[in-house]
């Protein structure tokens, strides 16, 4: 499935909906959305991943980039990651620097 990344910013929360397969050939698409989100000085970055079928290290590097671009207090949420995507994040220790949620929980995410 073709990769897509769509950013929506509302009330200080940036949501990027990811779908398809995130390998090195499409990682720049994701990075551009993260750059746009970082430029808007948001308080939260929420990555909606339920439709994301694959993530390679190039996608993880974009998460490193997001961490570096955003203020230290900005939490990064990963919502609905499929097992194989979560597995890759766990193998590389990324699960410890994000907040993983099974479903979008407005009370947790939007309580700024």
């Amino acid at each position, binding site marked *: 499935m073709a990769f897509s990344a769509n950013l929506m910013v509302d009330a200080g929360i940036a949501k990027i909906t990811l779908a398809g397969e995130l390998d090195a050939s499409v990682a720049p698409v994701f990075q551009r959305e993260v750059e746009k989100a970082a430029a808007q000085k948001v308080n939260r970055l929420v990555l909606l991943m339920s439709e994301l079928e*694959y993530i390679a290290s190039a996608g993880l590097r974009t998460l*490193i980039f997001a*961490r570096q671009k955003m203020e230290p207090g900005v939490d990064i949420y990963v919502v609905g990651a499929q097992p194989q995507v979560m597995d890759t994040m766990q*193998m*590389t220790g990324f699960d410890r620097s994000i907040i993983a949620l099974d479903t979008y929980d407005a009370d947790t995410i939007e309580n700024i």
Partner: protein
Amino acid sequence: MKSCDFPATLDSLGAIAEFVMGIAGSAGLEKRASHHLRLAVDEIATNIIVHGYDEAGLQGTLELRADIDDRTLTITIEDDGAAFDPTQAPVPDIDLPPEQRPIGGLGVYLAMRSVDEFLYKRVGDRNRTIFKVHLSSASLEESGRA
């Protein structure tokens, strides 16, 4: 034995993944092992394309080959890009918070941990990277070869 050549460009990654998942299916690999094999081959193919060709100013082809026997599924990538031995790459410190990590090294790290055996050989002026996955009795039954 199955083989296929792919141009050494990032646009080939999708087709390489399809090739690998097709082979994993014929070998009866379960979902997690198939995903790990795809991840390993994708990461190394990416490395070869970016560092072995693009950054070296070279153009070329990645030759993939798959062999399945009673016990093992083997995928081999051969390329004539710049020499690179992934087994000698520095290991990233995954205990460091992401923002403090150096960029790079993650792909090789993932690849080497995602298959049962990972081998590299320099053969003449070519790189040969070999991925081996041990087939369980379940996968042998699945593929009808038990």
